[in-house]
């Protein structure tokens, strides 16, 4: 076990170095220059140079620049934003809970909708429900999310007035009672969460569908069926488990996709999370902020994968034993 953990740790360390190297390279290789360095204002210009200088040095050889920067980020020092001068790490810290929170809800919904959907469709393969869900999930995958968002905002927000258009909470949030607050946040989250999860239903539900088909064809299930075990139990004991395990891994792997998707829905729904911050950083060419966000989003993915691994090991005793 100890050896296994050690190996994983080394692996993680290598990945982390690689992540930072790629983030650095992307910024360094891309043409163009950071915000403000060519500003009309000479003072702004020297200030920006100074901030970058401090973060990774400007006139040194590339590998030295990288090394300086790398040492800094080990201390969690990502420098200061080129546009508003605040610490990059602080700016990101404020945003992570929002994006992470919404994405957890999204994952939960994907998980709890797509698996039953796929299971049922797979179990009744070829039936009406199967066909219907097939169409639905494909539609979800194919629709451009911002288009869907605009249509939903127009219909449910403006025409029906059921949900607020954008933002995370109402203007009067501070003066609400706790239940009101919860209701308020929930109301604001309906549309963005729907948009964010709709597109991701396809992958998982297709997966669990085909997995279900595969399992139902397996001999042990057939044997169980012929023994007269109730379907409910078979589904619960065998199929669900067989489907759930790989799904955990898939959810872990879907972290980067969800983070990437958050750029679009956070922008359109005015949700001040990491996605929106990233979009603003990119448009402002705020190099230090972009680099910080790239590294941190990749690290979040790493953590996601690790958690998935742990969950997998926890759920499937075979793996635990093998590793021991």
């Amino acid at each position, binding site marked *: 076990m100890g050896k296994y953990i050690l190996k994983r740790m080394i692996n993680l360390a290598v990945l982390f170095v690689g992540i930072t190297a790629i983030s650095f390279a992307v910024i360094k290789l891309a043409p163009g*220059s950071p915000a403000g360095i060519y500003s009309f*204002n000479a003072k702004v*210009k020297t200030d920006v140079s100074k901030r970058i200088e401090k973060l990774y040095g400007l006139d040194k050889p590339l590998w030295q620049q990288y090394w300086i920067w790398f040492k800094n980020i080990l201390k969690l020092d990502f420098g200061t934003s080129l546009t508003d001068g605040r610490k990059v790490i602080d700016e990101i810290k404020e945003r992570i809970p929002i994006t992470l929170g919404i994405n957890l809800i999204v994952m939960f919904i994907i998980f709890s909708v797509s698996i039953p959907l796929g299971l049922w469709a797979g179990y009744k393969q070829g039936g009406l429900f199967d066909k219907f869900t097939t169409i639905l999930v494909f539609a979800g995958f194919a629709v451009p999310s911002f288009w869907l968002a605009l249509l939903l905002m127009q219909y449910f*927000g403006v025409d029906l007035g059921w949900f607020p258009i954008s933002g995370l909470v109402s203007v009067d*949030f501070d*003066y609400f009672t706790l239940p009101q607050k919860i209701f308020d946040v929930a109301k604001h989250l309906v549309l963005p969460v729907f948009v964010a999860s709709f597109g991701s239903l396809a992958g998982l539900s297709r997966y669990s569908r085909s997995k279900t088909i595969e399992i139902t064809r397996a001999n042990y299930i057939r044997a169980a069926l012929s023994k007269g075990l109730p379907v409910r139990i078979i589904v619960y004991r065998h199929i669900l488990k067989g489907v759930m395990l790989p799904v955990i891994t898939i959810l872990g792997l879907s972290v980067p996709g969800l983070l990437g998707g958050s750029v679009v829905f956070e922008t359109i729904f005015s949700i*001040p999370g990491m996605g929106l911050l990233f979009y603003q950083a990119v448009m402002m*060419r705020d190099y230090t902020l972009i680099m910080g966000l790239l590294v941190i989003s990749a690290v979040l993915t790493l953590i996601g994968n690790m958690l998935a691994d742990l969950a997998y090991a926890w759920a499937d005793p075979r793996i635990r034993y093998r590793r021991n």
Partner: protein
Amino acid sequence: MLNPQKNRLILLLSKKHSAFFFFLGVVLFLPLAGSAQSRWPQRGGAIVLSSIGSPRTLIPLLATDSASSIICSFIYNGLLKYDKNLNLTGDLARSWEVLDNGRKIIFHLKKGIKWHDGVEFTAEDVRFTYQKLIDPKVITPYSSDFQRIKRLAVRGKYTVEVIYKEPFSPALSSWTMPIIPEHILKNEDLNTTSYARHPIGTGPYKFHKWSVCRGIVELTAFKDYFEGKPFVSRIVFRVIPDTATLFLEVLTQGVDNASLTPLQYLKHANTPLFRKHYRKFTYPSHGFLYMGYNLNNFFFRDKRVRQALNYAVDKNEIIKAVYLGQAEVSTGPFTRDSWAYDFNSRPAEFSPLRAKELLKQAGIYDSDSDGILDKNGRPFKFTIFTNQGNMERKMAAEIIQKRLADIGIKVSIRVVEWTVFIDRIIKKKKFDAVLLGWSLSQDPDVYSLFHSSQTSEGEFNFIGYKNPEVDELLVQARREFDKERRKELYYKVRRLIYDDQPYMFICSPYSLSCIHKRFIGVCPKKGGYWYNFIKWWVPKQKQIHITAGF
């Protein structure tokens, strides 16, 4: 007022037939004294404003983005301000004197003005602000006007004496710069201080909270404001990065004030629902759209070519297509709301024939019959650069492209992201032509745009315009404090520039906006409608937001 029930009834009705019943209400109930509350300004409620980007700093000296500047305008005051008719008037200053041919300006400050923390505002704060403005370590873009000051002296608690190196008429306008508190910032580094996120000013609203995770900045009415406590008790700024989202928010009354695109103004904002809740406004803006030529370009060096292009493009077409008529043709850098605007100026007509004629005179014609004009074997091709994220400019560029193609000039368009635009196109002068807009301040000084000394890297005359006569006039106008005489000088400047055509002046779009109807007291004047914001109020029953004991 005998029967409160009745009063409420009238008000309910008045929503539908407002003009008539309002009149009735005033006549019937006013004499019956103060209990007819709804007729008197009522406190409370909130106004929700929005911006595309997050504000970056609430120190006005450092603020360059519009979100920060707008928020700062509620928190701070300058010594002077522009009133509803765009005349300079005292703000923190009670009065001012211009002495010694304009070399010396003395400001007499109002007494008893309080900062939001209760400390009194004095001349020391003015001195402090000035020192920060000219401090080379402070990253402010506003220092140039203040570097012309030779000496600033405090004469007692309420008098400030400013001595200029030479007469400088834009000086007064520069003192609309917000004043920051010395007692708080004395020992702070302005560039890094956390004060930027919880500022203290003298303005009608004080800072309440800045919540990044909710995307809002909130201000509350300052009870000791020297012009009286504002009636609307809260201002909430929301960051809404997407324009489509913003408009949907307006449609659902989630935002009380927004600028509108011409299309929104004319079509969406004409629905009964919209008109029920919002008032629309249109103003001449003090910005204009232009195509600037690189005057070192082989073709554009020749004044006739530039004049020809001016004839070849129909500005009215652009106004009609891009701005749906919500703009007017410009004839120079001054816009209709400026006192330097010459109402007798006329734009050149649209005449492709004249354009061709002029080009021929300049030796440009289609010598090889390939459909493209040429001179000395060089085909007349050029690229218009414009910045990303501005639909109007993009569309205008496409129309110019089309119209110049009609007379045989091949134009391509490159839409470039803003920082790249500044960095590679403007600063390195790697462009043939740019399509951009200027938004000028109230003072008509256009020295930095057209004076020949302003052409080095990073300065605003990046097209390389040089005309000794214009130079001389611009310098003279800067020294002249007499408005009428200064006006004459700017008339001349405009005529010369329009004839030279370093820019193709296209148009000055109106600024279009809307504001929620529940606000009473909105009274648009030449200078817009924000000038009396502290007097606006919302009747209690229409206060859709919580007031909470402020």
